[in-house]
């Protein structure tokens, strides 16, 4: 007799699994220490937010984790066959390059049209399939790039400042979307943000980086950490309350009101 449930359980281990783990990463450019013995790990089904001031080494750390650069010292370990979906800080397609969203989605790997359509719908960009990449707004572009990363069916999603160039309302929407993706896909998410209060609601763990790891842990704990406050000031902690309200509706990309399902 076939019992489908246990098989499903087998495919998705219910205990949290470490997807990627870096230990003792150090990196020096031109005699400047960018990273100093940094440890970080991301488990499946958790959202880790990397936060730190400009020039703190956040992007360098991501590049090391992605294998785009080799650290001076330290190691990066990934689980075997780890698929990573990556959303770079800013992808600006040159206006001379005629690239539709459809082509962008299948840029490195051919993808079935139906899968593209579904993924675009999920990020609220279903109407953009035939739009030209260079004509998209910042928010539209990030949604398309998010759909693109998701099409790889990643175990780990790496998002470098996903809300850059997106207006304030769009920022909140994008973070909500990222939270939903984690719930639905059960992947791990590592995200870089300049703004802790925006990601509070959807983050499981915050890692505060300023060349070394200043502090790490639950967002509530980090925002009271003296090292965090020294970096970002008390105002950052106080302004948190402002964003703790719920929305009863949101606006779709085309301006229509979309009911929230929570």
């Amino acid at each position, binding site marked *: 007799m076939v019992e489908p449930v246990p098989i499903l359980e087998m495919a998705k281990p219910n205990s949290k699994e470490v997807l990627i783990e870096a230990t003792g990463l150090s990196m020096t450019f031109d005699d400047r220490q960018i990273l100093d013995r940094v440890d970080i790990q991301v488990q499946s089904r958790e959202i880790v937010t990397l936060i730190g001031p400009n020039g703190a080494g956040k992007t360098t750390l991501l590049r090391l984790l992605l294998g785009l650069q080799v650290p001076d010292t330290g190691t990066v370990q990934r689980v075997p066959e780890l698929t990573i979906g990556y959303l770079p800080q800013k992808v600006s397609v040159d*206006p001379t*390059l005629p690239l*539709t969203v459809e082509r*962008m989605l299948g840029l490195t790997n051919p993808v079935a049209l139906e899968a593209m359509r579904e993924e675009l719908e999920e990020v609220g960009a279903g109407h953009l399939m035939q*739009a*030209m990449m260079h*004509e998209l707004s910042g928010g539209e572009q990030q949604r398309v790039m998010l759909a693109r990363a998701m099409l790889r069916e990643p175990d780990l999603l790496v998002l470098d400042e996903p809300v850059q160039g997106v207006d304030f309302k769009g920022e909140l929407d994008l973070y909500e979307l990222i939270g939903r993706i984690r719930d639905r896909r059960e992947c791990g998410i590592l995200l870089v943000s300049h703004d802790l209060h925006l990601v509070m609601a959807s983050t499981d763990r915050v890692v505060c980086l300023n060349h070394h790891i200043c502090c790490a842990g639950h967002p509530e704990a980090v925002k009271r950490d003296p090292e965090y406050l020294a970096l970002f000031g008390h105002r950052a902690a106080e302004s948190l309350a402002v964003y703790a309200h719920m929305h009863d509706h949101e606006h779709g990309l085309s301006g229509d009101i979309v009911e929230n399902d929570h």
Partner: protein
Amino acid sequence: MLDDFFIRAVLGGIGVAFVAGPLGCFIVWQRMSYFGAAIAHSALLGVALSFIFDFAPLLGILVVSVLFALGIVGLQRRSDLASDTVLGIFAHVALALGVVFVGFMETLRLDLMAYLFGDLLAVGRLDLLWIYLGGAASLVLLVRIWRPLLAVTVHEDLAAAEGIAVERTRLLYTLLLAAVIAIAMKIVGILLIISLLIIPAAAARNISRTPERMAIVAVLFGIISVAVGLGASLQWDTPSGPSIVLGAFVVFLLARLGNLPKPISGSKSR
């Protein structure tokens, strides 16, 4: 038929247009026209060295151009000078070196003008063979690396993170660029080669919705440019290389005029 110098010239120009179109698109997309011009400037040095050490000029150009391109890329990464300054310095040093080396060869009187501005009307059968063999090989290679090259053009880190061999793709692309410069030199000359790559590509931009169509339209525009330029050259006895470039410019103007109301950030066509 191939005895007729004019027919040979047209066939040679068309052969070059087939590779120049798609490759020129990448130069436009990557904003690398100055890089391409700098590599082309080094070609004369390759010609001079090949005469001094007695090997085929095509090979000389290929080797010198590739070494030169790799050198520039390496220096740009390390230097605190702006990359266009590095390009400007090396392009002209290479050209000067080329002219000086040509001057060394007292026994051989090289027609400098033909190398700088092209001498399409002296294209021989062997040249035609080289253009078509080299062009076909280049096209095959370009088609094979098309997808990774496009990905690298859009975003290098993204391509690398998704498993594309960025360095290898870039190296092959540079090799292609050098190869096209080598085979196109006879047609328009070192100083004008880049225009044959980028003008048809730029003209093709506004009427193309996919990268592939832009490449194909660029090929067609290149062929028209060659025909117009050589026709004018025959009619008014103007130098052939510059005439082709002017022909390309006419095509560019017409293509742009036909699409004026569509500025790049204009109305979204969906």
